[in-house]
């Protein structure tokens, strides 16, 4: 049958091609390490990886595997691979909130005693705590981040100290006085809540991380502020669907007087909206009561080592190199990512990149961690679900609802 034989003769080369595509190129030269990290637009991570591979003098190569920029999506992609025991993952650029979950699930190698001191020397306490879990170090602090209050110096003579003062001030400014905050139902809403709660003197879990805390008075205070913000004419009408980037865009649009956001908004405004950047001031995140200090949650990236990777010793070496001072400078200069080495905040070069370095350092010194528990993502879902939309919060009723939801999430019960 001529027809069939031609079909088969066409199929065989195609199949061979396909199978070849699946095969890895034969390993030649030094082993290649894979660093799974979010796609950093400036190329700072690529450059750091290139430098480290260079200084290893040919003992390893370091390739980047790009993850999405959205933190939820990064985690989803990673946990799927990690749970399946993917051996391709050598280094992981970890969001600070993944430490407990990844460590508990056995997806990471703990930092060995002899390697840990070199990645902890001179580091700020907050980022170190974010990479630690159950008495060990699981991820080396690389960059850090936290929110500041950004405001328009042309509309606001002195930055407000408290949430109450800020909302009043914003309302008195009128249509150009909007406050940009994160009110969408996602992890950012949990961050907002945890910062308010910590600033009011409360915490989601107790010190052991096994029991729900959510003390009544601070929790109610935090909810009252969220409710007040959402029902104020000064809040953005799209508050219920705004994330960090929507806030940034809205602020760059010019119709807002205040924004709670991470430091990346500063280089962004200079590039996209120079006329707004000129009028942009910064201050500490507002406190909940006069005379109190705010405690803001800490963000940033730590570097962990995959438990199933093929070259763990080289991976630790590469990670140590990536988080070194030179590469923290690089990340600051190219990507605008704040360093975790305390001394760099006095460095004139760094201060030129972050004119707000002093406020940032103070904020980081008082910063808090998001609940360090393996079920953080469940707890975060429970919190953001219970509190969204902010305008429908009823502080009286929702303290109990919140406690019940977090309780269920902590025991990984129920649907979320």
């Amino acid at each position, binding site marked *: 049958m001529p027809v069939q034989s031609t079909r088969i003769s066409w199929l065989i080369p195609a199949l061979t091609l396909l199978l070849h595509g699946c095969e890895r190129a034969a390993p030649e030269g030094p082993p290649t390490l894979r660093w799974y990290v979010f796609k950093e637009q400036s190329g700072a991570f690529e450059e750091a990886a290139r430098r480290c591979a260079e200084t290893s003098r040919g003992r390893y190569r370091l390739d980047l595997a790009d993850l999405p920029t959205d933190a939820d999506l990064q985690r989803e992609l990673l946990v799927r691979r990690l749970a399946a025991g993917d051996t391709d993952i050598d280094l992981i650029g970890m969001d600070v909130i993944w430490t407990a979950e990844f460590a*508990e*699930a056995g997806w990471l190698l703990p930092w060995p005693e002899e390697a840990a001191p070199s990645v902890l020397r001179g580091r700020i306490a907050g980022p170190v705590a974010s990479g630690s879990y159950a008495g060990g170090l699981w991820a080396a602090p690389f960059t850090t981040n936290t929110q500041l209050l950004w405001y328009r110096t042309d509309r606001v003579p002195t930055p407000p100290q408290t949430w109450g003062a800020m909302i009043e001030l914003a309302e008195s400014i009128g249509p150009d006085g909007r406050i940009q905050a994160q009110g969408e139902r996602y992890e950012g809403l949990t961050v907002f809540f945890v910062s308010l709660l910590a600033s009011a003197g409360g915490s989601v879990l107790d010190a052991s991380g096994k029991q729900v805390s959510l003390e009544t008075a601070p929790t109610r205070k935090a909810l009252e502020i969220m409710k007040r913000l959402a029902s104020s004419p000064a809040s953005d009408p799209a508050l219920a669907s705004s994330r960090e980037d929507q806030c940034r865009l809205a602020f760059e649009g010019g119709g807002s007087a205040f924004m709670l956001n991470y430091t990346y908004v500063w280089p962004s405004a200079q590039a996209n909206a120079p006329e707004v950047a000129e009028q942009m001031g910064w201050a500490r995140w507002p406190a909940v009561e006069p005379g109190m200090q705010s405690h803001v949650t800490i963000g940033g990236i730590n570097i962990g080592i995959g438990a199933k990777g093929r070259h763990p010793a080289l991976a630790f070496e590469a990670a140590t190199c990536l988080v070194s001072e030179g590469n923290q400078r690089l990340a600051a200069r190219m990507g605008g990512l704040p360093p975790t080495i305390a001394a760099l905040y006095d460095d004139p070069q760094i201060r030129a990149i972050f004119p707000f370095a002093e406020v940032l350092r103070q904020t980081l010194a008082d910063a808090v961690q998001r609940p360090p528990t393996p079920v953080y*993502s469940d707890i975060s*879902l429970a919190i953001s679900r219970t509190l969204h939309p902010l305008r429908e919060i009823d502080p009286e009723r929702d303290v109990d609802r919140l406690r019940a939801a977090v309780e269920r999430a902590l025991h990984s*019960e*129920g*649907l979320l």
Partner: protein
Amino acid sequence: MSRPALDERRLGWLLCAPAVLAMLLVTAYPILYAIWLSLHRYDLRFPDQQAFVGLANYATVLTAEVWWRALFNTLLITAGSVAVELLLGFALAMVMHRAIFGRVALRTASLVPYAIITVVAALGWRFAFDPTTGFVNALLGLDQAWLAERWSAFFVIIATEIWKTTPFVALLLLAGLTLVPGDLIRAARVDGATAWQRLLHITLPLMKPAILVALLFRTLDAFRIFDTVYVQTRGAQDTESVSILAYQALIARLNLGLGSAVSVLIFVGTIVIALIYVRLLGVGVLRRAGRQE
């Protein structure tokens, strides 16, 4: 049965066997595995705590307020989209059936939305309704954050679904329309039946099998809606569908036990829908088919 007939029958089974095996492998195995998982506590984040828990996962799902809300949302999206799709699809099918000029062009053009990948279509609609980048607000002179509120978000989701799958319904109905004999319609006209009567008493009853197929396919499809909701709201504003719940439990929380229980319940839901259709519409169709034989 005679010997050759039996042999032939066996040959038939043998020839079918590879297909049956493949079906079992790709559908029965995952279904059974999901059922097995749903009876266990199986969370990939706590690999040591695996245990048989009986129907506890089902109890958790069925007592959760979230499940019933998601089910309501799903049924709402299903009913809203399928009903409108059927009406629009019917109208579109009529137009395509009657068109004299540019028939091919018309049929091709009407299929374009169906050819677009759902995620792309959902993104397109999301951008269109976005208050800052979209054109819908400018067109209508509104200042509405469509996806930030529950009912307007439902509206956008359902509209996307309708836009996307009406051509599919129209195509199925068009096939049904071509089955209606032209002689019958002409005879009815001679007998003095109005256009409405011809539609109601001749066209529609003869199209019943096609309508049933279109409804069944679309309802089952709509009941499992995932991509449009995921892209447009990610389930926020209380627009979660049951598939989103399964995704959250399985992919985001790695709780395979609980997630599988949700998946199995969705599977049961689709079976129930199929049974209802066959009962309500199918019996008549089958009986008539039997009489014609």
